[in-house]
């Protein structure tokens, strides 16, 4: 055995002792560090061991993927054939089959618009942002038709498509309106201030379901007889106003978190009100508010399922209607699971993006 010698300072790093790394050590530290932890871990492992195989069995192994009716499905497994058969209904609702390319096109254009807004290194981002700003109007035209396209009644909207239409509209319009309301609430001009306060407090004091109900039935009494104000448009307006009020309060939180000196410094530089807001105040306030803003977005997005009360069938509504199909009785678990997965994927996506933004902008003051 030869003994290796090293000059001072040149000794290579040795691997850490074997009892401080590796899976065994991880288990020791995290799961079996003392007796209570060991007991909890063993119980948890036992529960997982009995539930996971059963879940996988039901979800995948014993599941039926193709079939015509309930009777084609195995009784002890999930019946995904039902979801498969109704996938079109879940996605497009009652949208006429021949015109569904318009929904697909809108979805692709939406993806581009979202990429433009969220991805800073998008090529030609300036133009793309302008495109994103006009996108809601292009999509509105594409989806409802007119001016050269076959008109499609908004009553035929449904499923994922309706959820996304309501969610995206609410999200896209509630942020700017919310910012204006938040600024209005702090304004020195009494009319603007009290209008903003009155609006925010009124909307926050009323459940969304009531607003939707007002939109669907009460408006018929206020409007002149015979006028036909599109139901979906009414819902979009109500959802947007509702989200705006919450958004305003979230942003006001951000505004109030800023030291007063920021505004005073902007004033001393000779910036006028809008310059100060645009360059100094809002960038900081919005950055602080990101978690709250995204929280409101997610809440709004999930609240869209309330539209079933006024007879619009969003993805959950289509699900609820689907479980009443006599050829596929008793499949509510599969349907609700499918809807839950849909909502989870989209909401989780929003939450992850929010986290990414926070990390990038260091809003947590981690340093």
């Amino acid at each position, binding site marked *: 055995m030869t003994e290796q010698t090293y000059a001072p300072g040149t000794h290579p790093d040795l691997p850490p002792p074997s009892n401080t790394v590796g899976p065994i050590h991880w288990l020791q530290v995290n799961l079996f560090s003392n007796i209570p932890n060991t007991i909890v871990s063993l119980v948890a492992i036992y529960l997982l061991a009995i539930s996971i195989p059963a879940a996988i069995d039901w979800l995948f192994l014993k599941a039926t993927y193709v079939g015509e009716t309930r009777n084609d499905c195995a009784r002890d497994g999930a019946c995904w054939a039902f979801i498969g058969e109704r996938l079109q*209904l879940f996605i497009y*609702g009652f949208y006429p089959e021949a015109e569904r390319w318009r929904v697909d096109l809108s979805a692709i254009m939406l993806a581009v618009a979202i990429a433009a807004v969220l991805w800073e290194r998008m090529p030609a981002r300036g133009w793309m942002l302008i495109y994103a700003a006009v996108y809601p109007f292009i999509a509105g035209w594409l989806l409802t038709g007119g001016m050269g396209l076959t008109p499609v009644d908004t009553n035929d909207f449904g499923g994922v498509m309706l959820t996304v239409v309501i969610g995206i509209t609410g999200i896209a319009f509630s942020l700017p309106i919310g910012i204006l309301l938040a600024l209005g609430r702090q304004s020195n001009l009494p009319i603007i201030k009290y209008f903003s306060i009155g609006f925010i407090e009124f909307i926050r004091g009323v459940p969304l379901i009531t607003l939707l109900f007002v939109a669907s*039935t009460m408006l018929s009494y206020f409007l002149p007889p015979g006028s036909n104000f599109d139901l979906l448009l009414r819902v979009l307006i109500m959802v947007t106003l509702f989200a705006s009020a919450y958004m305003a309060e979230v942003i006001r939180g951000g505004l109030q978190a800023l030291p007063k000196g920021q505004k005073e410094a902007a004033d001393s530089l000779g910036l006028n009100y809008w310059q100060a807001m645009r360059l100094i105040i809002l960038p900081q306030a919005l950055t602080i508010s990101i978690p709250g803003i995204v929280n409101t977005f997610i809440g709004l997005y999930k609240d869209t399922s309330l539209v079933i009360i006024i007879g619009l*069938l969003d993805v959950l509504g289509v699900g609820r209607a689907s*479980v009443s199909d006599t050829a596929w009785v*008793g499949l509510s678990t599969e349907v609700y699971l499918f809807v839950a997965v849909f909502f989870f994927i989209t909401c989780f996506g929003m939450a992850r993006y929010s986290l990414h933004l926070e990390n990038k902008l260091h809003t947590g003051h981690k340093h």
Partner: protein
Amino acid sequence: MKLINKVFTGLAMTAMAAGAAQASTLDDVKAAGELKCVVTTGLAGFAAPNAAGKWEGFDVDFCRAVAAAVLGDGDKVKFVPSTGKTRFTLLNSGEGDILFRNTTETFSRDVDLKLTFLPVNYYDGQGFMVPTALGVASASELDGASVCIQTGTTTELNLADYFRSNGISYEPVPIETNEEAYTNYVAGRCDVYTTDASGLAATRAKFENPADHMVLPEIISKEPLGGAVRHGDDQWADIAKWVVNALIAAEEMGITSANVAELGAAAGNNPGINRMLGTEGSYGEMLGLDAAWAARAIAQGGNYGEIFDRNIGPDTPLGIARGLNAQWKDGGILYAAPLR
């Protein structure tokens, strides 16, 4: 829940003022080119969209029959899905022209909510379903049971009346839809599920082993289900009423979707059939429609019997027997007023 009910009822009340001021519903429907029909958000056999997004069911077929009579096309229907609590408000506010939503005709709905009910198209009654393992043979043995009950329905009130008059107690488990009731019942969150007997049959059909569950013999209420329209437009109410009557009478006279075109082509020997199909008299014109109104309604989805058999009859998964809903000649109580 109570408060919400009151608010909704209040809204519905406000509606009567507006309803009276509206122009003729028939003209509105013709101008719009579509019939707005209030249905459920989904009830097996009665109204639900199929995989292609087309609404199907017993109630839906009545909507389509009215649309066929008025507009000439049973597909020109805009379905307005509604929950138990919103259905009357939607109708009264003008968001719907007609309602077919397995709705029980009652005094307060007729008088207080200002509805005009159409002839009964389904005679139902409230029953109880329990697991056989519970060992109960009669509803009077249900003291202290937890009961799944749909809110905002007449069944909720019947249940309270029944238990009160029998001096026994129960624990309500409020639920919103039939589907929810099924889930709760299967999970054992309630011992008893109560709803109309047709709904119980639909629910029982879903069980893997229907024999594990039994419907108790007691039928504790009368549930005459029918369509409804707003107060204030008698012509429209007449049209709807006679479309329903025509479908029921068509079965009695043997007019089906298969032979209606042949029978309606020229006047035959049966004056009743001639009057209905417009080859004799001018009954359609009296309604403000044309002579072939009933022929179109029947051609759309068939007569009452065809609609029943296709959607909820013995050959469907629901497997409901005609029972009370048979023609009066066959031992049921379906008895359409004569069309003359």
